[in-house]
């Protein structure tokens, strides 16, 4: 077998990366913390392809023949569901993890194309509310900055059980990012490491979640949709339980979903990929006859309109982007490569978002760095990216003969690998074989 260094053998198990990590741990005595989501290769939407129109199916013409992308979220109980123009939302990211400028840019970009942004751990900032025409307000285990006035002026409420990067883990923000403003919002002393709660303080379990959701509805006079966000784990049961607990919308975040700061072992080894999680969630909704009645938003590795279209074909009502949105703003841009090198990284590899020294000015509280991000320009870049995602989704949908992106279905897909076929519940291309279905192997 050939190796990078002929004549020498590098262990696949104890590669140089692993050696570096072990020796780092031996030096520092603490786990490695980083941002981003799972970085290792995983079965994903790339392993699925669409069966475009041919003899038996007919495509729609571009432009004149309408391909509708509008989505309504929160139809189950809320008096005022959210009406989105595109099936792509911005995922929850905190002020604290991100700079104020980044949060504003996200709001501007999302509002320009008619979709929503989401607050994060730490609460809602006035700028965020002003910048976003549709704002989803998170209720997290920490309850930092939780304020009924913010509940009342939010457009939707998202009860967070967990996120894909760390199902079972709580928030994390290190001292270097807890400046006076962040500390004030969170009722913490400045510059200390924030310890995280992983369970909610006043409920545990779906039976008590039901009661908590009812309280949140009562406080807001049943106006706003209540989302429940879950990191992908036992997605079939979690979805069923979220429905039983009274959710209007379920947000499902696969292990590829990003974080601002989490232990590397948690990110890479806890949680399942978006692909099987999505399939399980849709199965649960279908069995409960709740598909499309309780809407499903999926996140974790959405990058292109192809990902969007595939998620919708598998049954999601919408998708959410986090890492991709930050990249659209300029994170990991090659233009900053020299600065990344000074930080011991490279453009394309930089994931030390927890450190707060981001040269792009996005995942930092340092005023000088943060001022590098112009919110207006950032907003335009995000809007451009979102429009591109939406157009790509429409192109694919039209090619499959759909006049609404929600009419994409699993039967429009084929799998390129056995794993993807099994996980997505979609036949291996050229066959009728879905591993595990109908007892066939």
């Amino acid at each position, binding site marked *: 077998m050939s190796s990078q260094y002929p004549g020498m053998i590098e262990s696949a198990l104890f590669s140089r990366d692993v050696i570096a990590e072990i020796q780092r741990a031996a030096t*520092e*005595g*603490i786990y490695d913390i980083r941002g981003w989501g799972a970085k290792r290769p995983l079965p994903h939407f790339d392993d699925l392809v669409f069966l475009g129109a041919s003899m038996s199916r007919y495509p729609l013409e571009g432009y004149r023949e309408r391909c509708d992308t509008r989505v309504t979220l929160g139809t189950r109980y809320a008096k005022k569901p959210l009406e989105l123009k595109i099936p792509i939302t911005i995922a929850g990211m905190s002020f604290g993890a991100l700079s104020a400028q980044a949060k504003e840019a996200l709001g501007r970009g999302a509002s320009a194309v008619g979709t929503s942004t989401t607050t994060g751990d730490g609460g809602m900032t006035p700028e965020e509310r002003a910048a976003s025409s549709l704002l989803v307000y998170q209720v997290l285990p*920490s*309850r*930092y900055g*939780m*304020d*009924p*006035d913010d*509940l*009342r002026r939010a457009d939707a409420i998202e009860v967070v059980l967990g996120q894909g990067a760390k199902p079972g883990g709580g928030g994390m923000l290190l*001292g270097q990012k807890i400046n006076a403003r962040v500390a004030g919002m*969170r*009722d*913490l*002393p400045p510059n*200390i*490491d924030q*310890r995280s*709660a992983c369970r909610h*303080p*006043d*409920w545990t379990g779906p039976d*008590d979640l039901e*009661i*908590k959701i*009812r*309280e949140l509805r*009562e*406080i*807001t*006079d*049943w106006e706003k949709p209540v989302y429940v966000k879950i990191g992908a784990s036992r997605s079939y049961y979690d979805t069923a339980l979220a429905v039983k607990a009274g959710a209007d919308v379920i947000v499902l975040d696969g292990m590829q979903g990003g974080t601002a700061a989490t232990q590397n072992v948690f990110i890479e080894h806890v949680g399942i990929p978006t692909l099987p999680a999505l399939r399980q969630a849709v199965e649960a909704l279908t069995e409960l006859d709740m598909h499309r009645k309780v809407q499903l938003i999926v996140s974790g590795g959405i990058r292109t309109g192809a990902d969007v279209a595939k998620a919708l074909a598998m049954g999601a009502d919408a998708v959410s982007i986090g890492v991709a949105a930050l990249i659209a703003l300029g994170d990991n841009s090659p233009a900053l490569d020299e600065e990344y090198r000074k930080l011991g990284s490279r453009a394309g590899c930089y994931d030390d978002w927890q450190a707060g020294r981001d040269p792009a000015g996005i995942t930092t509280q340092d005023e000088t760095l943060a001022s590098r991000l112009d919110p207006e320009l950032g907003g335009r870049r995000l809007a451009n990216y979102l429009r591109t995602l939406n157009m790509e989704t429409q192109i694919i949908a039209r090619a499959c003969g759909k006049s609404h992106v929600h009419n994409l279905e699993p039967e429009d897909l084929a799998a390129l690998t056995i794993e993807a076929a099994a996980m997505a519940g979609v036949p291996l291309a050229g066959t009728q074989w879905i591993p595990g279905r109908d007892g066939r192997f």
Partner: protein
Amino acid sequence: MNAVASETRIMDLRQISVRELNQALHDLREEGAPTRWQVRNAAGEHALAVGINAPCTVEINGHVGYYCAGMNKYAELTIHGNAGTGLAENMMSGRVTLKGNASQSAGATGRGGLLVIEGDAAARCGISMKGIDIVVRGSVGHLSAFMAQRGRLVVCGDAGPALGDSLYEAQLFVRGQAADLGADCIEKEMRTEHLEALGALLDQAGINLPARAFRRYGSARTLYHFNIDHADTY
């Protein structure tokens, strides 16, 4: 609503729904809305009088379920009975007085105002508190003041195990026995300023006990920055 502001408006939960009660309490900002309320036949209902956002007084007769007075702002509530989980959770301001016993997580994540519990509170009283003052005439259960960030918890009786586990800057005062202290929670000196502030708080709560009968507990602050030597605490 034509009621004169000084009249007491009576809401009987055998005749109206919880939704109607809360909606009426949320419509208080209207001109001439009644500011004195009495709720009857609470019968353990959940989410009673939640999200109030205007000054008023509310008397609740009977036992209440979960999250009574949740996220209260400005209102003064008195509950003649026991309360379920999460009494006055995330309260912002105002006052809640419970005549009976409180279940778990009383005053959870509270950010302001005063919560007085004349009976006992169960586990996790004051969990994650962020500025609220909580005064308990009786005892509190285990893990009270867990991750308590700001505010004051005063316990006239005993405190259950793991008091103040993972404590930030909240101040804890206990008159009876603390079964044991949680991670990073230590006993601290009671100085003049603490005695004065505690005395004022006890007065405000209507409790006739001397401040010097209490001991003070607070954070040792060893967990504020990760230190490998403290790894056992995690």
